[in-house]
């Protein structure tokens, strides 16, 4: 079983050993990059198909079903359409910046993909400060969005870019703060070490994933909300709201550059989902001891797929927020909750030293209460203002 688990690692070693020792690190890096681009390129294609199909079914439609069996070749048709379209640049646009913006998005996003451990010994780059690296390159994506919006010389584009920057800055705080609780517990910024810290079983059968602890669960929820906002996904897709600011900073993009932006946004979503899997869902570890024989990368990509489906599901369910709701949600709910979560994680850390009977149970109950009480009081404060009449819907029962 170990051979299958390490098949990609040994394949790479085998391929690299044909080259002279001087260029071996270079070849190894090149192989990793090629594998990453191929893997995430195909995940991107599949995701667009799944997304359109699932959204269609959620809305009681059929979804794409013309190109190929079940419309499976739809991504291919889309790609051909995108790449053969005319590349239009507005006359008054700032040509150089307009041209560079898609690349300024795609480069940091693909760099962010490089630090995630995809399986046992399968992290393309194992940085000591992996989490920091991830957020540092993620910050560069904001610049790309601004470049796209400003250079288009279009009021909708600049509006979308301003919204995007305001939103990304506001939601980066809860994103980083919910990560910090994990970093605090594990004691390392290295994503490989974070996964290894979760590679054990509680009571012999429950996985040691962070999501199964009170602070981890709260952190996971906060992280996923902030991640949806960071990757401009519904219900936080205000920067590219088609119905109000005609796709925002993407308005003036067409053809190949639009396709690059589209790819960059999806890769951003995969990267942030991959980080969520790594931080909270145990990365490549198996959920149960009797399933350890399944190769580690299978677990990682299964969890990644589940999170992608969750994103699509949320997109099909929730309507878009207003900009003031978006901002007050970030600053008045997510930020205090993630700060509280850090305190809870600290309590969890120190309660590990308790030595009276049923200490671990008490620790669990205490931390759960510490998370639940602020959550409930926030909810009470937010819901207390308005009551909506019951809504009616054709298929609601």
């Amino acid at each position, binding site marked *: 079983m170990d051979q299958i688990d390490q098949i990609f690692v040994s394949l790479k070693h085998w391929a690299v050993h044909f080259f002279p020792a001087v260029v071996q690190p270079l070849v190894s890096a090149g192989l990793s990059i090629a594998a990453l681009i191929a893997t995430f390129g195909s995940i991107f294609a599949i995701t667009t198909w799944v997304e359109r199909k699932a959204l269609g079914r959620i809305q009681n439609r059929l979804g794409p079903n013309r190109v190929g069996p079940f419309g499976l070749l739809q991504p291919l048709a889309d790609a051909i359409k995108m790449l053969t379209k005319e590349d239009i640049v507005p006359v008054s646009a700032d040509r150089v910046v307009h041209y560079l913006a898609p690349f300024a998005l795609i480069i940091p996003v693909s760099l962010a993909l490089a630090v995630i451990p995809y399986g046992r010994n399968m992290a393309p780059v194992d940085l000591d*400060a992996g989490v920091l690296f991830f*957020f540092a390159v*993620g*910050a*560069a994506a*904001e*610049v790309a969005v601004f*470049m796209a919006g400003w250079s288009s010389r279009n009021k909708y584009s600049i509006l979308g870019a301003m919204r995007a920057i305001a939103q990304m800055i506001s939601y980066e705080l809860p994103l980083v703060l919910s990560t910090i609780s994990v970093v605090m517990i594990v004691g390392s910024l290295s994503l490989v070490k974070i996964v290894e810290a979760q590679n054990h079983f509680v009571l012999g059968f429950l996985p040691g994933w962070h999501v199964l602890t009170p602070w981890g669960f709260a952190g996971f929820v906060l992280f996923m909300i902030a991640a949806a906002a960071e990757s401009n996904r519904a219900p936080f897709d205000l920067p590219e709201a088609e119905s109000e600011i005609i796709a925002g900073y993407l308005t003036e993009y067409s053809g190949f550059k639009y396709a690059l932006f589209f790819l960059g946004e999806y890769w951003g979503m995969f990267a942030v989902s991959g980080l969520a899997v790594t931080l909270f869902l145990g990365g490549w570890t198996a959920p149960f001891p009797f399933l350890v024989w399944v190769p580690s990368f299978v677990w990682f990509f299964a969890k990644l797929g589940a999170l992608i489906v969750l994103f699509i599901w949320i997109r099909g369910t929730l309507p878009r927020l207003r900009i003031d709701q978006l901002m007050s949600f970030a600053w008045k709910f997510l930020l205090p909750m993630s700060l509280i979560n850090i305190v809870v994680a600290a309590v969890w850390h120190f309660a590990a030293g308790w030595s009276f009977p049923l200490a671990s149970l008490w620790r669990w109950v205490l931390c759960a209460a510490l998370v639940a009480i602020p959550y409930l009081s926030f909810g009470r404060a937010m819901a207390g203002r308005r009551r909506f009449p019951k809504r009616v819907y054709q298929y609601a029962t």
Partner: protein
Amino acid sequence: MSPVFAILAAMTLASAIAAMSFRKLVHSALSMILTFSGLASIYLHLNAQFVGLVQVLVYVGAVAILVVFAILLTRDSTRDSSVRSLAKSWLTGLLVAGAVFGTLAAAILGSRALDRAAPQAAEITVKKIGEQLMTRYVIPLEVVALLLTAAMIGAVIIAMREKEGK
């Protein structure tokens, strides 16, 4: 001179000069981002991984975005793009900058104390930095925390819209 440093230094310097000489403010800000990224890569080249990443996070992710926001909020670039963008005393400024560089270069090149080779690169983990921050540098850390809070409150108060009545 290592080729990596040469390339990075050339890129950083070129974008710094560009940042200071573009007419459009947004172009200046974008070149500034390039300068900061170049400096971050030089830090990485100098084996200071944590500092390099913090540089990207703070300068590209926060300071650059703040600058861009300020540019868009003040909207001065469109109005006087035809007017000269240099201050009245630009020649004096240039001379002062040249003199400063001359002094610094003379001091650096004349110094004997700098003739030493790089020691073996130390393994600087984030953990070590954190431990130092929490032990030896804990008072500066607290002071910086206080400073950041004060700066945040101050910035909010300064930029807050004044009341209509006043």
